[in-house]
């Protein structure tokens, strides 16, 4: 589960000043999720889309899928994540429309 309260606490403030419109208090966002290599086999599909709390982290997104597909959790230490085609830290907060991919060790060449 995504800890919504915590995710909101970590969300950077979007109110630029006193005159900013009041942001919605509780907001979810939709992100694209991709699995590759053996992770695709474990998750059973290559692409999905997920609804998470605004500014939920990549780690929280992975936990959401690990809860759904328990075998995924075994691979957590040998996975790197990307956000919008760039390698990303696990604590990276997500924005609406982001594309997150979970990547096992690469073996091209």
């Amino acid at each position, binding site marked *: 589960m995504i800890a919504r309260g915590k995710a909101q*606490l*970590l969300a950077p403030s979007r109110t630029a000043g006193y005159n900013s419109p009041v942001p919605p208090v509780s907001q979810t966002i939709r992100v694209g999720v*991709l699995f*590759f*290599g*053996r992770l695709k*086999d474990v998750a059973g599909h290559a692409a999905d889309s997920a609804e998470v709390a605004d500014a939920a982290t990549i780690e929280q997104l992975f936990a959401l899928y690990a809860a759904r597909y328990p075998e995924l959790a075994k691979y957590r230490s*040998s996975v*790197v*994540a*990307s956000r919008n*085609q*760039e*390698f*990303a*830290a*696990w*604590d*990276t907060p997500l924005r609406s429309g982001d594309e997150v*991919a979970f*990547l*096992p*060790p*690469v*073996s*091209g*060449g």
Partner: protein
Amino acid sequence: MVTLPHDDIYQLVREPIDMAAQIRLVRAPEGGAIVTFDGFVRNQSHNRATLYLDYEAYESMALAKMQEIGLQIHEKYRIHRVAMVHRLGRLEIGETSVFIAVSAPHRAAAFDACRFAIDTLKRTVPIWKKEYFEDGAVWADGELPPAPAATPRAKPAS
């Protein structure tokens, strides 16, 4: 900041790689040396006979990472042109999976840049191969790309 020369080539393809054509494309009059790397499918893996390989990629990111490598070698070495092509899909024994050609005015830069390019590609470009054997298939062991450490963040106000 170096920008990629427009005549460099970075490609993911599903057909056999025409190595001679890639070499012709990097062969410029300013050059004097071309170094190539031809990576092709081995007939065994960990002492098991391989039947064939199947490559898949996170294509948009893989291409971006290949171009990043191109930028890096243009910055690091005095080279002229780069061709970097990776094949995807099913590959038979002996078929070329990756081909890199680097042209430079002098050989040392071409050797160094080509070596750096293939080593970095194998570590950072999101491509995976599945190895098929008589008795099943496995995803090849790979290298975990270096990922950024945790993001430094200001403490939330309490």
